[in-house]
C-alpha cells in the first residue's frame, strides 16, 4: 500500500469528493494560494473558481453560506484555517447548523463539513487553542478528529457523505505524518473508535495527534516492562467508548490524554464514562494529561511547559500504575 502524508491523504479524499458535482470548497486563501497548509494547492486550476471559492475574511459568512447551500442539496466543504477563528462562526454552527434538522421537523438537513485545524508552535494565546469540547458538547454536530492518513481520508469521505453537519478537525503538527493509504476510494465510518496498540497494564484513551505521542510513550514504557493498550477515539460525537471500556475492564487502569485544558474538557467526559461504565473494574484513579491551564504562552520555554510531551504521558501512565 502506498505510504503518504496526512496532507496527501486529505488531498486524495478531496479530489475524489470533487467528482461529485454537489461538492464545493470555500474558505480564506484556498484558491491560488492553495490554503494555509497547502491542502488545496492546484484545486482552483483543476476545478475552477466556481467550486473552489476564495472567501473574504468573514467566518460567519463562510459557514452561513455553507449552511444555505447545504439546505438545497449541495455538499459544501467550508475551511477555516485555524479553529481559533471558528469562534466567529459559532452562532452559525451552534444556533443554526446543529439545529436546523430538528427545528425544521426533519424536513431539511445540513450536510456540510467544516474543515479546521487545532495546533500550536509559538503562535501564542489566540492561535493555539482547541475547542473540540465546545463542538462536541452540542447535540446535532458530529465531531471527527482523526490521527492517521488512512483515517483522514476515510473519515473525510464519510463526513461529506453524512447527512449532518460535521466538524472535521485537523492538526497543524500532523500534516507531514505518514501512513499507508489505499489509492482507491473508501470510507471510515463516523463514530467508531480503534484499538491502535495492545497491552495489559493500562488503557490509554486518546485521539488526534495525542495518539502518536501516546504510542511513543508506550514504547518508552515497554522497555520498563509496562505494556499499555491505546484506544484512538477518532470521533468525539457520536462517541464510541466500547473499545475503551472493554480494555479498561481488562486493565483496571485508565489514562486519558487530550490536547486541551483539563477543566470541563474532553478528558473529563471520557474519564466520566470510564468511571460510569467501568466502576467495578477500577484499580486506581484515572489520570489525565492535558494542556496546562493558561493561555498558550509565546515564549518557547513556557510553551513547552504548557503542552503535552511524551514524558508527561509516560509519567501519567506510571502514576496510574501506582
Amino acid at each position, binding site marked *: 500500500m502506498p505510504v503518504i502524508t496526512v496532507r496527501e491523504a486529505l488531498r486524495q479524499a478531496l479530489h475524489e469528493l470533487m467528482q461529485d458535482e454537489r461538492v464545493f470548497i470555500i474558505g480564506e486563501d484556498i484558491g*491560488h494560494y492553495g490554503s494555509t497548509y497547502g491542502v488545496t494547492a492546484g484545486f482552483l486550476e483543476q476545478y475552477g473558481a466556481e467550486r473552489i471559492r476564495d472567501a*473574504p475574511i468573514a467566518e460567519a459568512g463562510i459557514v452561513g453560506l455553507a449552511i444555505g447551500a447545504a439546505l438545497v442539496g449541495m455538499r459544501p466543504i467550508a475551511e477555516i484555517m485555524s479553529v481559533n477563528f471558528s469562534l466567529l462562526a459559532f452562532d452559525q454552527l451552534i444556533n443554526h447548523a446543529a439545529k436546523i434538522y430538528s427545528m425544521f421537523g426533519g424536513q431539511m438537513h445540513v450536510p456540510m463539513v467544516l474543515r479546521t485545524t487545532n495546533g500550536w508552535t*509559538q503562535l501564542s*494565546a489566540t492561535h493555539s487553542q482547541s475547542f473540540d469540547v465546545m463542538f462536541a458538547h452540542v447535540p446535532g454536530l458530529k465531531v471527527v478528529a482523526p490521527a492517521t492518513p488512512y483515517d483522514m481520508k476515510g473519515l473525510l469521505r464519510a463526513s461529506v457523505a453524512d447527512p449532518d453537519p460535521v466538524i472535521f478537525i485537523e492538526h497543524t503538527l500532523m500534516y507531514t505524518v505518514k501512513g499507508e493509504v489505499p489509492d482507491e476510494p473508501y470510507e471510515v465510518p463516523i463514530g467508531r473508535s480503534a484499538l491502535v496498540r495492545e497491552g495489559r497494564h493500562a488503557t490509554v484513551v486518546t485521539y488526534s495527534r495525542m495518539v502518536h505521542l501516546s504510542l511513543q510513550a508506550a514504547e518508552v514504557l515497554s522497555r520498563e516492562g509496562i505494556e499499555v493498550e491505546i484506544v484512538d477515539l477518532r470521533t468525539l460525537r457520536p462517541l464510541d467508548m466500547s473499545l475503551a471500556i472493554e480494555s479498561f475492564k481488562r486493565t483496571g487502569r485508565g489514562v486519558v490524554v487530550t490536547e486541551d485544558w483539563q477543566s470541563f474538557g474532553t478528558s473529563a467526559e471520557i474519564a466520566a464514562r470510564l468511571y460510569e461504565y467501568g466502576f467495578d473494574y477500577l484499580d486506581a484513579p484515572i489520570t489525565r494529561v492535558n494542556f*496546562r491551564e493558561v493561555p498558550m504562552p*509565546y515564549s*518557547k520555554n513556557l510553551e513547552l511547559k504548557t503542552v503535552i510531551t511524551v514524558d508527561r504521558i509516560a509519567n501519567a501512565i506510571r502514576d496510574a500504575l501506582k
Partner: protein
Amino acid sequence: MGSDDGPPALSAAEALSAYTVMVQARAVDDRLWQLSRQGRAHFVITSAGHEATQVGMALAIRAGHDYVVPYYRDMALVLALGQTPRDLLLHAMGRAADPASGGRQMYGHFSSRARRIVSGSSSVGSHLVHAVGLAFALRIGGERDTAVVTSFGEGATAEGAWHEALTIAGIQRLPVVFVCESNQYAISMPHHAEVPVADVALKAAGYGMPGEVVDGNDLRAVALAMRRAMARARADGGPTLLECKTYRLRPHSNADDDRRYRAAAEVDAWRARDPIGRFGEVLVREYGVAPAVLAQIAGQARAEVDQATLDADAAPAPHPATIADHVFGTVAGAAPRSEDQRHA
C-alpha cells in the same frame, strides 16, 4: 493640500523626527526578518511599506493622551508613540521584559498602558469594538479632548465586528478615527476578492461618517487627514473612516511566500514608491536637509537596532515560576478554595 507637491505642512523638526522614526522602523523590520531566518524570532510580521501611514497617523496623536488600538502591522506606529527598538525586539524574542506581554503574546500584539496602546487578540477586525468602548467611556468620563484611533487592514472590513463597531460609533457619534491601512492584499487575497467596492472609504456613508481616501505613502497627506479627523473627534463631531492606500513591501509574515500571489513587477513598482525614500526627497528638496544628514540618521538607526538586538538577546526568558501569572487577577481576602490549585 499637503501632498508631496503642496506647501510644507509639518515643521522642520516634526518632519525630521518623523523621518527618523520611519527609518528606525525599517531597520527594526530588517532585523526582525533576519532574526526569523536565523531561528531567533519564531514569528514576525512586517510593517515595511506602511511607515508613512503609521508615522503620519502618530503625528496627529498625543502619545499617552489619546488612545490607540492598533493591529499587528503597526510597528512604526508604536515606535512613533514612544516604544523603542529594544521594546520591540524583546517582544519578538519573547523575553520576560517584553513590555507588551512579558513574553506571552506573539509579535505584533503591541501594548503599553503608559502610552495608551491597547493590545488586541489575533482575530482580525475584532479590536475595533474596543476602540468604540474606550471612546464611549471617555465621553461619559468627561475626557472630552481625548480621541481614539484604531487601525486595520482592508481585509478586516469584511468581518462582522468591523461592521458592528462602525455602526455603534456612527449612531453614538463617538470620537473614534478608524484608519484602514489599505495595502491591497489580505495575505494572498487581492482587494477585489475582499471588498466589493473600489475604496473602503466608500463604506463610511453607510455608517453616517465621513470617509476619505488618502495616499498612504505620503506622510504629510496622512498627517493632515488625520489631524482633521482627530480635530473632528475632539470637537464632538463624530467618527471618521480614513483609507490610507499603501502596499506592504514584504510577505505578510515569515510564514508567507508572497511570490505565490504577487508579480515581481508589481512589488518593484511599489518599491520605487517606497515612502521612506519619498519623504527623504521631500526633506532634501523642501526642507533643505543635507543628504549626509539622512545617511547619518540611517547609520544611527542601524547602530541602535544592533544594540537593541544585543540587549534583547541577553535578556532572560520568562521564569517558569511565573507561568500562571496574569491569568486571573487577585481579590484581596478571597483566596480560591480548591483542593487542587493546578487550575486556580
